[in-house]
């Protein structure tokens, strides 16, 4: 009350109680309006907010990747070497199984492996992202985290595996006598475009999984079918010529695979009619997936 009396005395113009209350309310409003760190009515657009928060939480993403890698190999003797050995072993099995069928391809093993390395990254990462959003749901109900962290960290883990398995792959390419050329320097671009496509699709699939948990099981079947529809273990020439063009060009993974196969297997840059549509598909998928996920993200906590 002391402050009240002082206030009345200090401001001669303000005599009536209403006027003082009015002034005080304004003052109070001014205090309230400044320096709130969070205001649910003044948030940036969802896609931008998600992006800024993902950058802010980059250390979490790093830590999630580290967790995946540590947890996976902790109890094995060879540890992180399995990152190289496991895809390599799997690829070799595929190569041996199918090489009797397609022995007309020179250096068939390198042909399969160059495609399979991209495919393995794609299928493992998308599946991991779907799994992660379900696991992350437990956390999302309790603390605030940008939800794209889970998909991005899956990409990170996949990227580590991809880069590590490039080492044994290049050795195999040398052994089977395929040319090693400067075109290999194109690989970082291939990896980036594949990553963009995979992240975009992961975000779309994660969102769908939250609404329909069955997506997770269904996707396992789809990815299996998709793999056999993509020329990974077989040459494109076995597809009947009449509908070969559409068969290949309607499949986004055809472009992604070819952007790996051209530099690794052919020792050449990918053709422009592969690179341009491939790059467009990647970037559009990423933008669409990101926006779709971010717009829906507010609802996730209601659903999980």
């Amino acid at each position: 009350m002391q402050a009240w009396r002082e206030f009345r005395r200090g401001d001669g113009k303000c005599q009536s109680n209403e006027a003082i209350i009015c002034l005080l309310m304004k003052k109070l409003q001014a205090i309230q309006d400044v320096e709130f760190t969070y205001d649910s009515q003044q948030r940036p657009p969802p896609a931008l907010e998600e992006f800024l928060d993902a950058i802010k939480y980059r250390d979490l993403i790093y830590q999630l990747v580290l967790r995946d890698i540590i947890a996976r190999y902790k109890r094995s003797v060879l540890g992180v070497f399995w990152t190289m050995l496991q895809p390599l072993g799997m690829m070799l099995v595929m190569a041996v199984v199918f090489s009797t069928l397609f022995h007309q391809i020179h250096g068939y093993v390198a042909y399969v492996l160059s495609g399979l390395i991209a495919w393995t990254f794609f299928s493992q990462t998308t599946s991991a992202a779907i799994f992660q959003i379900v696991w992350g749901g437990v956390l999302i109900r309790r603390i605030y985290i940008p939800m794209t962290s889970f998909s991005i960290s899956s990409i990170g883990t996949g990227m580590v595996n991809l880069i590590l398995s490039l080492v044994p792959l290049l050795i195999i390419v040398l052994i089977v006598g395929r040319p090693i050329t400067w075109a290999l320097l194109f690989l970082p671009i291939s990896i980036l475009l594949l990553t963009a496509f995979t992240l975009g699709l992961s975000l779309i699939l994660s969102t769908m999984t939250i609404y329909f948990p069955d997506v997770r099981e269904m996707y396992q079947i789809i990815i299996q079918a998709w793999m056999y529809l993509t020329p990974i273990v077989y040459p494109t020439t076995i597809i009947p010529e009449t509908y070969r063009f559409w068969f290949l060009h309607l499949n986004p993974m055809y472009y992604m695979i070819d952007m790996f196969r051209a530099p690794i297997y052919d020792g050449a840059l990918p053709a422009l009619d592969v690179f341009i549509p491939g790059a467009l598909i990647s970037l559009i998928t990423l933008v669409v997936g990101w926006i779709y996920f971010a717009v829906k993200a507010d609802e996730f906590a209601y659903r999980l």
Partner: protein
Amino acid sequence: MGYLCVMKPVIILDNISVRYRAPEVRVGTFKEYAIQILKRQMRIKEFNALSNVNIQVNEGEVIGIVGRNGAGKSTLLKVVSRVLIPTEGRVRLRGWVSPLLELGAGFHPELTGRENIFLNGTLLGHKRREVETRLDEIIEFAELGAFIDAPLRTYSSGMTARLGFSIATTWKPDILILDEILAVGDENFRNKCNARIEHFRKEGTTTLLVSHSIDNIEALCSRAIWLDRGVIKASGSVQEIIAQYQHIQ
């Protein structure tokens, strides 16, 4: 009114409503979804977990929230910790919110205690560098000793809870959210926890406490809010609210 001028509002909830919309029958597959849509049988049930809730909490206040199960207490905490975006209304917060909703929710059993500290610290929104500087302090408070480099699956539940609490309370939060966590660990550790929360309060941390224990609320809070079926039934001084609440019970 002069009193209000000095106080700095830290949490302002304006007309908050949280509305869940769920189909009456759970739809889990596309097939069911498609069938339901075709038959136009999607009966949607709406229910308000919170309706038109207005709360203002000033800096340094400790607010107790009482109410029966399903009254919307946890939903309210979720709104404040930014987990739930309210269907209607406006939330304004000042400062960093530390959620203590469930200790150790992000722990991984195969990682060591030390590795889990980094994971959990970054989940709370801290930088790795910040975790690094507080590492010794966290380990010491959790009383884990040599166990800190053993995988978490070898920990007892008490050890896990101690580690979780230690990580979450190493940084002084501006807003602390407590959902029935005071029943953690043994007597000795519980006292340590309470001392830490008390310390935060003295340093100006604003606290929201949900507890079924009226004693806890009475001992810790300055003000109480009584929620009933998503509506604020009463709010005021702790003694007043608890007297009313217990009268009804």
